[in-house]
């Protein structure tokens, strides 16, 4: 029992950190530019594919560094050459642009690597047990994922708080006109933030590509969950995104381990539910089966109880 709890907790934390890595980039972009980047999860997918391909050519460790940079460059290009032309048409047009972009990126990936999941196996160099807990070993690559996530956040935190560029970006987050009036190139800052956000998602893709299936559908699988994180955490709040990510990551991971259903509860309470009752099917659903629903149930609950989200600041 304790074993299940501990491992679920560990895995939940890893998953939550992954979600946070992707959603923090999204929140950053949204806070600064008001753009909801539908293609953000696509950057995650590109990170996975690039690291796979680069890994085959130049090895894992260089790929770990280069793939996110490549994705960041693509993000910068998207903002500079695509999104910038759509800004003046309003937020709806911006969202639709990124929506179409996400679609096209999937097709580009299919053209590059085909429709089937690719063999993105954990590289041998990190494929060993990191430590033993309760007699079961915990894989090193997951520990590495955790380490990379935490390291990236520490680096970003310091960069934003201690460097001049970080200061300018933070100022532009709340007062873009003032920052522009002070002589800083706000469009350049937009490009930079878009690049950073995309690179973050790309890095998440590099390490997430091992844990999750690397296939053209992975962006569409992760994207909605990331959006839920952002709404539940509260638009524009990075701390909110963190809490929501960890919440969803841990709860969903725990749920997958729980093989119980309402029916089991009824049996324990000695309540009987006939097989032909219309609710039988609903009650027979196991929590593990319903796990994919959890983020969205959380979304609905949040909408009812606290529409602003946990720590919402910026309104649409």
């Amino acid at each position, binding site marked *: 029992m304790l074993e299940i709890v501990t491992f679920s907790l560990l895995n939940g934390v890893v998953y939550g950190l992954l979600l946070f890595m992707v959603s923090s980039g999204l929140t950053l972009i*949204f806070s600064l530019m*008001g753009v*909801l980047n539908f293609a953000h999860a696509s950057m995650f997918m590109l990170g996975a594919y690039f690291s796979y391909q680069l890994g085959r050519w130049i090895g894992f460790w260089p790929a770990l560094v280069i793939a996110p940079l490549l994705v960041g460059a693509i993000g910068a290009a998207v903002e500079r050459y*695509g999104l910038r*032309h*759509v800004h003046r*048409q309003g*937020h*709806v*047009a911006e*969202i*639709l*642009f990124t*929506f*179409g*972009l996400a*679609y*096209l990126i999937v*097709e580009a990936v*299919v*053209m*590059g*690597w*085909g*429709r089937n999941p690719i063999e993105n196996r954990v590289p041998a160099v990190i494929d060993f047990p990191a430590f033993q807990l309760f007699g079961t070993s915990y894989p090193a690559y997951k520990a590495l994922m955790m380490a990379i996530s935490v390291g990236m956040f520490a680096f970003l935190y310091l960069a934003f708080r201690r460097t001049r560029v970080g200061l300018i970006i933070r100022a532009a987050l709340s007062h873009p006109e003032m920052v522009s009036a002070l002589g800083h190139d706000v469009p350049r800052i937009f490009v930079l933030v878009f690049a950073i956000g995309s690179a973050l998602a790309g890095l998440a893709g590099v390490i997430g590509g091992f844990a999750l299936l690397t296939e053209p559908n992975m962006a*569409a699988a992760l994207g*909605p969950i990331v*959006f*839920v994180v*952002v*709404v539940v955490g509260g*638009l524009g709040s990075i701390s909110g995104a963190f809490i929501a990510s960890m919440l969803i990551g841990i709860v969903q991971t725990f749920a997958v381990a729980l093989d119980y259903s309402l029916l089991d509860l009824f049996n324990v309470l000695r309540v009987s539910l006939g097989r032909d009752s219309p609710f039988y*099917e*609903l009650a027979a*659903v196991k929590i593990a*089966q*319903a796990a*994919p*629903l959890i*983020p*969205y*149930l959380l*979304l*609905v609950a949040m*909408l*009812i109880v606290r*529409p602003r989200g946990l720590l919402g600041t910026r*309104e*649409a």
Partner: protein
Amino acid sequence: MSSASPGSGSSQRGRLRRWASQQRAWLIAIAILIVLPHVPGLDGNFGRSLLSQMGIAAVFALSYNLLLGQTGLLSFGHAVYFGLGGYAAIHLMRAINGGLAIPMPLVPIAGAGAGLFFGMLFGALTTRRAGVVFALISLGIGELVFAAMRILQGFSGGEEGITANRGLGPHPFGLTLGPQLQVYYVIAFWSILSAALMAAFLRTPVGRMCNAVRDNPERAAFIGYDPVRVRFVAFSVAAMFAGLAGGLHALNYEIVAAEAVGAGRSGAVLLMAYIGGVHHFFGAVLGAITITWLQVSLSDYTTAWQLYLGLFFMAAVLFAPGGLSGLLSMHRPILRTRAFLDVLKTYAIAAVPMLIAAVGAIMLLEMNYRRATQPDAGARIRLFALDLDTSTPWPWLAAILLLAIGALLFRRTRPLVERAWERAGAEARSAGASSEAAG
């Protein structure tokens, strides 16, 4: 048009004639719908099937435009109401198959009812916010319902879906719904009725306020209307008609599966409404017809048809945000000018390099796509009635060359088009023909 002549009989006729001339467009549309399935080329099973599909898509897209174009609400989960309406309809069909004495043509009403119910249910939650948050929430609810449908297999049949027989039930007036022609007419009836009802809705006080809330929700509040309530009404009505479309879908295909509530279908209707044009009521119909036709016909020629649709969509977002109907109505002010013919001529001239570039681009895309998705099919590919060997560099070089030449030449022809437009615009303005009518 008609004069009110003395005598009650002729003034009644006068009123009828006045009404008919006002509703000219609708009457013409009805006439076209009646005649279409008998037009040569469309009078086979395939043609009538296609028309049926277009009818369903048109209702769905119109309902979506009620949200986006008329109320300013961008939804990524509209298929929820389409699919749930479809499920309600298919279960009703099964009940009819089992002996319930309701004629099949009335089944879409169940779809509408389910759409309305769930629209009000989810709408109460989601319309409190607008803009980006609304879009995200609609996505979340779409995923929720899709996942739920996959889990609740008894109700939804999961990925495989639920089936029914549209021919098995009471046959009023000999209507068996066996032949596709009969199904088409049922669909056409519901489609034109839905369109008329939606147009009528937009003329009601709350319908007008939908437009106002779209343009300026803050000001709408300051003239006495709760923007949240207006959005809720729009959402519920849109969901109802989406459900009706789902009911038509159930009738037509006799099967409803989880994909009917899925993200793909939500994306498809967004594509249709946007490419058709969100600024005009008719745009959604145009988009539905175009995209349905593309989906059906392109997939015969290429496996990359989704890619082409995506490119089409991006082109609309970047270059033609008003969609097809926007492009068409853009020409209205210059229609009567003499320079209009010149404009058309420059279009023809510019079309040539555009086609050349398109051929090159298509070659590249197709060759790449084939290589990536069907590696076992070999290196030979049949494009534009030519056999090409993609393992050699020649087809690739030819494609790149065509693309480059076409793009460069197109660049040169663009000023021609622009100048023709300037002349036409100036002529229209001086003729006073360009009084900007309300959108």
